């Protein structure tokens, strides 16, 4: 890898070419999975911002575990849910690096609830890429903390019922109450235009981190056709018709804007 690639401006930034930050390894993702889209978006933004040589990511336990096979950046592993704690340990001793924590909804909102809340609360200057697919993909389609009511999973076979299984957790809204979180946005991967919004959100999150404003997180409503028991097209429609209703996309918190207003 030549060290000049990151600075090289792609001629057609929005044209369909493989970003420099993406390897040519075939991914292990199922057809129609959203992980691959987010991987690509992250790679595009890293390319465009020239951050490939200063980025360090932490891969989660979950379907995103092999991120290091797909991104041409330094990547560490973390125990299930401890992803933001590992990212904290990296960022605190390397404050000049772009540090990413990539997490599924089980990783972030179940086993790693304490870590994400306290990482946000400390205002750690990292960016979390949060894949909300309302399911546990890696372990075979069990209920996630974000599974919707009535949604059928391997462990809610008659559908999620609040009384038995609890209610879906709204991560962005929860984290918005914490002073340390600077930028929180929920985006959907249901259409090309929404995907483009997702890319803008990633860019904004990285800028928030580079400006040292604190914790940033982008939540992606992400299709899991395999465990939603749908084909990829139905899964995208399902995001618009069901998931987006429970988890409304939009900017949930933006300190950059607030500070802009003050000024």
């Amino acid at each position, binding site marked *: *890898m030549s*060290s000049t690639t990151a600075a090289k401006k792609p001629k057609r930034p929005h044209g369909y070419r493989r970003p420099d930050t993406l390897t040519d390894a075939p991914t292990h993702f199922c057809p129609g999975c959203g992980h691959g889209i987010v991987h690509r978006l992250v790679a595009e933004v890293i390319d465009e911002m020239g951050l*490939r*040589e*200063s*980025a*360090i990511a*932490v*891969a989660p336990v979950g379907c995103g*575990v092999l991120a*290091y096979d797909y*991104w*041409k*950046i*330094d*990547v*560490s*592993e*973390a*125990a299930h849910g*401890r992803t933001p*704690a*590992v*990212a*904290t*340990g*990296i*960022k*605190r*001793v*390397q404050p000049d*690096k772009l540090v990413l924590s990539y997490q599924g909804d089980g990783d972030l909102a179940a086993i790693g609830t*304490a*870590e994400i*809340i*306290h990482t946000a609360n*400390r205002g750690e200057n990292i960016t979390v890429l949060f894949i909300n697919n309302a399911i546990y993909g890696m372990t075979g389609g069990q209920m996630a903390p974000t599974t919707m009511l009535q949604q059928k999973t391997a462990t809610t076979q008659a559908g999620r019922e609040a009384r038995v299984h609890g209610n879906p957790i709204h991560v962005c809204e929860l984290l918005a109450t914490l002073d340390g979180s600077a930028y929180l946005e929920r985006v959907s991967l249901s259409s090309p235009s929404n995907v483009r919004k997702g890319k803008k959100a990633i860019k904004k999150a990285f800028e928030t981190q580079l400006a040292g404003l604190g914790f940033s997180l982008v939540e992606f409503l992400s299709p899991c056709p395999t465990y939603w028991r749908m084909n990829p097209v139905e899964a995208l429609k399902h995001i618009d018709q069901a998931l987006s209703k429970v988890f409304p996309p939009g900017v949930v918190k933006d300190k950059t804007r607030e500070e802009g207003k003050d000024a």
Partner: protein
Amino acid sequence: MGQEKVLMTGNEAIGEAAIRAGVQAYYGYPITPQNELTAYMSRRMLEEGRVFIQSESELAAISMVTGSSVSGKRAMTSSSSPGISLKQEGISYMAGMELPGVIVNVMRGGPGLGNIGPAQSDYWQATRGGGHGDYRTICLAPSTVQECADLVYLAFDLADKHRNPVLVLADGRLGQMMEPVTFAHLPDAQPPEKPWALTGAKGRQPQRIVSLHLNLDELEQHNIKLGKKYAKIEKDEVRFEEIQMDDAEACIVAYGTSARVAKESLKRARQQGLKVGMIRPITLWPYPYEPVRAAADRVRFFLVPEMSLGQMIEDVRLGVEGKKPVYHTGRCGGNVSTAQEILDELHHCCQKTQTATRV
């Protein structure tokens, strides 16, 4: 803190030694009887312009250590028994990822919440892996406040040398007691270069640090590689102290606080004409089996005082290989035997072994 001796608790001495060893990040969660260490670091690390975080849990603390360690920096965490149980997750990952790091356990009574009295009942956890998977961690056992400092300093070197987590196993009494200690012989350390660290792929290929090896043969190869490292550690890093073993007819084997107390028992026994010697393991893993094995040919029996129902005694038996009787003594539940109690037990064992040879 120059050449002179200062009066410090074991917990504080551990902190100061870590700072001299070049620890760049300390992560901890309060738990008695090691709170003085976290408090000390909260002040000193910031004074030094280094990283201190009071984490949300021990699970998070050890993962923060992981993050700073993948960054190539010296990092540590400390806790006491219940918190060390939580850290086992991260220690297993660090072993798999071959990451250096120092973990201090100021042991207290257990199981469960137990109490805050000093104990040695985490020996098995500390020396047998502790977490899941086929791995080992170097384990150092200080018995004085000075040794708390010296061994913590050494722990960072060993961790870097072998790319492996190192445990320092103290107990509540050592952590809390004050003794004169000097740091004059512990210069500010220059940690080695770590080309494997994740510092951003600038001018080089991207790097990864992982414990996941989905391919079965690949993981097997990784395990075998770790096994070779552990074999090398077993060969190179055994540390122990022998006290009056030359003419000993009975051998005490003890570490940490138990060894301190037993030293006094040994002195009194000698005054009474009993030829007692002592082997004091300083590394609990790798274990000093050799001196124990050698002693088994010479002494009549072994006595193993521990602040537990008897855990290290199994290692002594592994070294003795059935050649001589091995007896346990000690208190548990946060209690510590007195020198007199151990002395009485020495006399008792003498009688038992005499009767045994007569029958």
